């Protein structure tokens, strides 16, 4: 039976790296982005999902915020803010998209490239460290029981960061529920949770709610 597949929870931590490099206008930003590491792109986009969300700041990614606050180019900021990170399963493709957005904007708004930013954009990078925890789930019920006790970092790893590691558009949690437990509908509902909108604790609550609803339905199903 599918439920014999064990889900061992991992977690991740990151050490922020500084480069000493900065951009004071869009031209410099484009050069920084083109030449920077993929982990830098990951830091300035995906990492933002766990940086400020918990304090309810409308923070999408570092590029969108810097362009709005320091260059006051709101339409370009909105283009970056609207990037749906779930559509990218490799950082290479995300980097290409970012470069294309800036180049398209340059073609349409050459004067914007003459503007000097109020404050520079500081290029950062990250070292990510992934480790196993001592928490396991053996079936949906035990997964639900453990879900409340895993750290925010563990949730971030399995629901957001894992998409980059397995190069699929899918998170670990819904994949396990679908492939190991055979619960396709529940998996799809979990996949539909918008990572661009909710805080991590809200995501945890959404997943818990969906699982609870599923388990309740099973419990109330009349026996034949």
């Amino acid at each position, binding site marked *: 039976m599918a439920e014999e597949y064990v889900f061992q929870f991992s*977690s991740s*931590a*990151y*050490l*922020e*790296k*500084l*480069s*000493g*490099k*900065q951009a004071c206008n869009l031209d410099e930003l484009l050069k920084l982005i083109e030449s920077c*590491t*993929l*982990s830098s792109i990951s830091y300035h986009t995906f990492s933002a999902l766990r940086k*400020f969300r*918990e*304090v*309810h*700041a409308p*923070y999408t990614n570092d590029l969108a915020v810097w362009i709005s606050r320091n260059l006051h180019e709101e339409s370009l900021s909105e283009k970056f803010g609207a990037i749906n990170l779930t559509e990218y399963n490799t950082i290479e493709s995300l980097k290409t998209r970012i470069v294309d957005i800036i180049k398209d904007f340059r073609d349409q708004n050459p004067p914007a490239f003459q503007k000097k930013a109020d404050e520079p954009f*500081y*290029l*950062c*990078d*990250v*070292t*990510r*460290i*992934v*480790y*196993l*925890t*001592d928490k396991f789930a053996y079936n949906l019920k035990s997964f639900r029981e453990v879900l409340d*006790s*895993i*750290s925010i*970092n*563990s949730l971030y790893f399995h629901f957001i960061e894992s998409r980059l590691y397995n190069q699929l558009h899918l998170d670990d949690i819904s994949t396990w529920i679908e492939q190991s437990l055979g619960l396709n509908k529940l998996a799809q509902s979990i996949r539909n949770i918008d990572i661009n909108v909710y805080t991590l604790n809200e995501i945890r609550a959404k997943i818990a709610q969906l699982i609870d609803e599923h388990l309740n339905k099973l419990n109330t199903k009349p026996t034949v």
Partner: protein
Amino acid sequence: MNIPTLSDYKSVVGRDDIEELYILASHVGNRSIKMVNSTATGGGVVEMLHRVVPLLNELGVETKWEVIKGGSDFFDITKAFHNALQGNEEALPREAFNTYLAYNEMNSQEMDFDEDLIVIHDPQPAALIQLPLHRKNKWVWRCHIDMSHPNQQVWEFLRPYIEQYDAAIFSSPLFSPELSIPQYRFYPAIDPLADKNRDLDVTYINSTLEKYKIPRDKPIITQISRYDPWKDPVGVIQAFKIARKNVDCRLLLVGDKAADDPEAEAILTKVKEEAKDDPDIHIIFLTHSIPTEINAFQRASDIILQKSIREGFALTVSEALWKYRPVIGGSVGGIPAQIIHGFTGMLVHSVEGASLQIRTLLSQPELAKRLGENGHQRVKDEFLITKSLKRYLLLLLALDHPGQDKISLT
């Protein structure tokens, strides 16, 4: 009160966060760290070391802390270095550099550096670094000060020493110069269970204010920081005086002095001149501050100011946010990392800006409350001592895997 152990932090940050520290520590293994700085009293670095050192030991990382020795001539020079690296353009004479190196050499002869990781804090002991060929361990320089506009004479003198380290740590990308070595960002952190931050009885808060003769008849605006020109205590008084034209309030300035700071008395004189015996301005100079009293002053305040014009990080901001206080901070150094303008506090760039935000927050208590609540969450996420412990563990792991952007521990 007993010294808190790691287990005590479970109720503050959650059991899962502490469990993950132990998992990371198990991957680090039996390692040792030596922290080196220039003073055992006063300032945020000392407060942090007092807590990080025993807690790292509890995690199984044998950690020691040593303070370098120096005469008043050395500390006068290192204070000048400190000011220069924070932007003072005054040139230093050649002898100052020679004296600095002589004291570092003297300390180097007297100390041993057998630990796996040596963490040198700030510029005072930076020249202790041994040549890479002569060492088997890792050395990291941790800079706690605002290096956004360093005096080039002093920075170019220090840079060759810094670039001999295995890595450097800064609290903000604003301070990060282009270096030939890896650089990491470590936020400083506060200890939520220390006397300075733990919950207090209302009676103790009231009695502390009575002790210092501070009436509770009107809102209290407070700045707590060393008497130092970079903290702009004179600007704080000016902002208060402008705001008071619209909102009735008191100003409380509380500061101590670090053992390595010879300038505090002179700044205090300037502050008193600006205050002109105003009965609503309370200037408290503490030679040795009592942490629970600082805690009481913060909890009794309606607004906390940290109107710095140069700043390393300003742990006082995190302390106040942890206590759900609305904070108005200068938009410098590490303060914007703590204050997301309009969400976890208010950032200002001038005396006038500070006065406007005092008026705004005193007139809009709901806004002030929301900023305080968000600020508390922000500190919980990033600026607690448990996060510092984690960063040291991650640093040890990262130094073992140079050049890797992803490390999988199994």
